[in-house]
């Protein structure tokens, strides 16, 4: 980490901001590439971002990132100033993206507390040689050169015009100035002094003379000091005060010269008088200055957006959760039992309203649009299309749809995998597409939309679609078929691709191979309480549908009692609950219990047996059945009694327990109003037992 800052917030901020910059940069590059080439605005933007990354990284002593950013900045400086045409934009994008990838990787290391030890030399060399190449193709003929000249003509010998005639009784001084080591840009510091001296001096000249356009002047100043000869009416003392105000002054030697001979002797050797130039520059600046004043009216108000560490939001969420529980503890306090408390009830209702408003507000703070996640896919489409020589367009719909921050993190990888899969296996090559009479460019559509308390994300492609025969064949070969192929609906066949063990690819390709199959996608999505489905039309494409909850943090739940244990069932999974009659119960020869409800037969799962909980309520008619459904599978859960419905704050099971054993049937736990813990049932896994 950095030598200057041991403070974590600084590092957090660095990582956060640099990541943000990188994202913006990547988007800028991909946008530019799509609109065929880089606009001036894009070039300015990239230059500015690289400049920022360079500065911040240097401050944090991540010199590899800083040096790389510097080389890209140089490249864009050239593009900005020279505006060369005939740039190979695709190659340019490749170089910059390589740089971005490097920085991303290093940032990842830094985030993980590792050393940012990557060596960007190759990338830098590539960028430099690319810059050399475009420089040679676009010889330096315009403004940069002129700027240089103009700067060289800046006053090295300066006589303030209105003072030139007043050189009466002026004293002549020689000053030698040394700056502190490491203050950088000594030539400009020298320039600053000269600029300030003109306020009160009659005549001045200095060594080295070419402080602006000759980089070697820095070394001369460092080694021999900056020597100034000047005529002024100020006294030695006044002058000494002036020089001592110089920032980074390490050593000053100030001597009054007895006669003018040394002064004039040296003066003649220096360049010609150029007093006019400085004033001209200043005059010009004044006009610019005015223009700015006009713009000043349009100044907008200060920052309206702040960034907050996500862990603080998590903490806030926890606190709000506890507040909700406390509210229930107060308003449903057993001490109030049987009392008629009209005013209390009124106040309690008000409290309840405010608590739920706060809850909604906190939830909304945590919501972030899918746009960034979606935008990341642009890069994948670009890279893969290029590698596989397929033309692919990516269409994004509903990017503004918002999801809880924690969920976003879980869907980014699955989405990436799905998009890769679509390009790799869905979209045909250009030749094939043309032969089939399809547009030569394939199209992938990412679409997000809200649907109740869920967000639905569709990954559509217009490729060849899934092949039923080969899926069936493959599933059969891997022993994944649970019923005869003839009895399966198309959808059931397609969904076989999500089973673990299906994606044993014959051909592992660079992108979607890696032994990672669709089952990993499913696992990831299910871990946030979502589901995955696929549909396909042979020859015209496939659609994969991800259904994910808006948030993980709070759910509506029905609390049930089993023995001394409490369980919470997500309300959205409950179809109905009822007291069973004994005659509806059916037992199959294996002892599996089932129940007939309105002519349909559903399996019964006794929670006390499943979770091995001791309870008095084992008689079928004594308890209650809760019918739950998940993805068209239904099961009736048997519990002692219903405790009531409420919103619960989902808490994860302790990591220590999750790491030991995957606990079947539970997604987490929550705290009830009386401080007891209720375990939240994972309906998805219960229905598939």
């Amino acid at each position, binding site marked *: 980490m950095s030598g200057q800052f041991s403070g974590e917030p600084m590092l957090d901020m660095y990582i956060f901001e640099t990541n943000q910059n990188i994202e913006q940069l990547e988007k800028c590059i991909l946008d530019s590439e799509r609109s065929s080439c880089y606009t001036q605005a894009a070039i300015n933007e990239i*230059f500015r971002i690289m400049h920022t990354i360079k500065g911040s990284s*240097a401050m944090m002593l991540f010199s590899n990132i800083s040096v790389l950013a510097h080389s890209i900045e140089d490249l864009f400086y050239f593009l900005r100033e020279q505006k060369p045409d005939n740039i190979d934009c695709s190659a340019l994008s490749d170089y910059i993206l390589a740089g971005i990838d490097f920085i991303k990787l290093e940032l990842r290391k830094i985030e993980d507390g590792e050393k940012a030890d990557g060596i960007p030399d190759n990338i830098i060399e590539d960028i430099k040689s690319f810059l050399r190449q475009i420089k040679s193709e676009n010889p330096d003929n315009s403004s940069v050169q002129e700027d240089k000249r103009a700067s060289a003509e800046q006053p090295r010998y300066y006589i303030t015009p209105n003072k030139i005639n007043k050189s009466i009784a002026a004293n002549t001084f020689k000053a030698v100035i040394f700056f502190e080591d490491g203050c950088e*840009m000594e030539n400009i510091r020298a320039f600053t002094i000269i*600029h300030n001296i003109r306020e009160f001096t009659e005549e001045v000249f200095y060594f080295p003379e070419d402080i602006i356009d000759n980089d070697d002047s820095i070394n001369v100043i460092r080694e021999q000091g900056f020597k100034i000869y000047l005529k002024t009416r100020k006294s030695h003392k006044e002058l000494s005060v002036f020089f001592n*105000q110089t920032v980074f002054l390490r050593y000053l030697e100030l001597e009054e010269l007895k006669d003018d001979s040394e002064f004039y002797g040296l003066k003649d050797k220096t360049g010609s008088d150029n007093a006019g130039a400085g004033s001209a520059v200043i005059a010009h600046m004044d006009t*610019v200055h005015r223009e*700015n004043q006009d713009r000043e009216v349009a100044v907008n108000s200060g920052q309206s957006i702040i960034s907050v560490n996500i862990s603080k939001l998590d903490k806030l969420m926890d606190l709000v959760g506890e507040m909700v529980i406390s509210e229930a503890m107060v308003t449903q306090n057993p001490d109030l039992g049987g009392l008629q408390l009209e005013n209390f009830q009124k106040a309690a209702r008000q409290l309840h309203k405010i608590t739920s408003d706060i809850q909604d507000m906190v939830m909304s703070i945590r919501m972030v649009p899918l746009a960034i996640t979606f935008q990341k896919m642009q890069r994948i489409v670009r890279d893969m299309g290029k590698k596989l020589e397929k033309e692919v367009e990516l269409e994004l719909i509903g990017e503004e749809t918002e999801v809880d921050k924690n969920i976003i993190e879980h869907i980014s990888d699955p989405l990436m995998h799905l998009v890769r899969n679509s390009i790799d296996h869905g979209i045909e090559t250009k030749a094939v597409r043309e032969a089939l009479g399809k547009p030569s460019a394939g199209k992938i559509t990412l679409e997000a939309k809200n649907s109740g308390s869920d967000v639905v994300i569709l990954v559509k492609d217009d490729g060849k679609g899934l092949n039923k025969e080969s899926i069936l064949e493959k599933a059969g070969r891997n022993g994944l078929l649970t019923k005869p192929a003839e009895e399966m609906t198309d959808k059931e066949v397609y969904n076989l691709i999500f089973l673990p063990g299906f994606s044993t690819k014959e051909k592992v390709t660079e992108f979607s191979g890696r032994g990672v199959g669709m089952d990993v996608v499913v696992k990831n999505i299910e871990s946030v309480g979502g589901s995955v489905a696929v549909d396909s039309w042979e020859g015209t494409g496939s659609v994969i549908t991800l259904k994910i909850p808006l948030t993980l943090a709070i759910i509506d739940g029905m609390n049930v009692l089993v023995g001394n244990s409490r369980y919470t069932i997500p309300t959205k999974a409950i179809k109905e609950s009822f007291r069973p009659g004994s005659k509806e119960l059916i037992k199959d020869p294996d002892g599996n219990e089932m129940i007939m409800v309105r002519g349909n037969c559903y399996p019964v799962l006794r929670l006390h047996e499943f979770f091995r909980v001791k309870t008095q309520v084992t008689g079928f008619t004594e308890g209650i059945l809760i019918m739950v459904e998940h993805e068209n599978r239904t099961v009736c859960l048997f519990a002692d009694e219903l405790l009531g419905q409420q919103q619960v704050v989902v808490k994860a099971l302790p990591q220590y327990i999750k790491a030991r054993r995957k606990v079947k049937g539970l997604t987490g736990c929550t705290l009830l109003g009386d401080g007891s813990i209720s375990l939240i049932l994972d309906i998805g896994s219960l229905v598939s037992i």
Partner: protein
Amino acid sequence: MKKVLIVDDASFMRLSLRTMFENSGFEVAGEAGNGLEAIKLYAKLRPDVVTMDITMPELDGIQALKSILDIDKNAKVVILSAMGQEERVKEAILAGAKTFIVKPFKEEHLIQTLNKIANN
């Protein structure tokens, strides 16, 4: 306590500067993320000294510097520049910046510079 206005488009830099200033007995009067904000905040807060980044969106540091000097000809503005920006720094000095610091800088250099400028 001397009041300083921080102008930089990178929030990381603003945080770095703020930390350094607060460690060293400066009062951070405000932070601006671009030139326009800087001008507005200068007029409002009248800080003793301003640290000004050059490369910023909306309105760059040099333009902002000029407008600030228009509001207050005695404004003390210290330019924060990066290596390779010699031309712009020179422009800033001509426009009236008191001095400049080159990123990456050390805390002691920053504070020493600010002390010198603020107390003159």
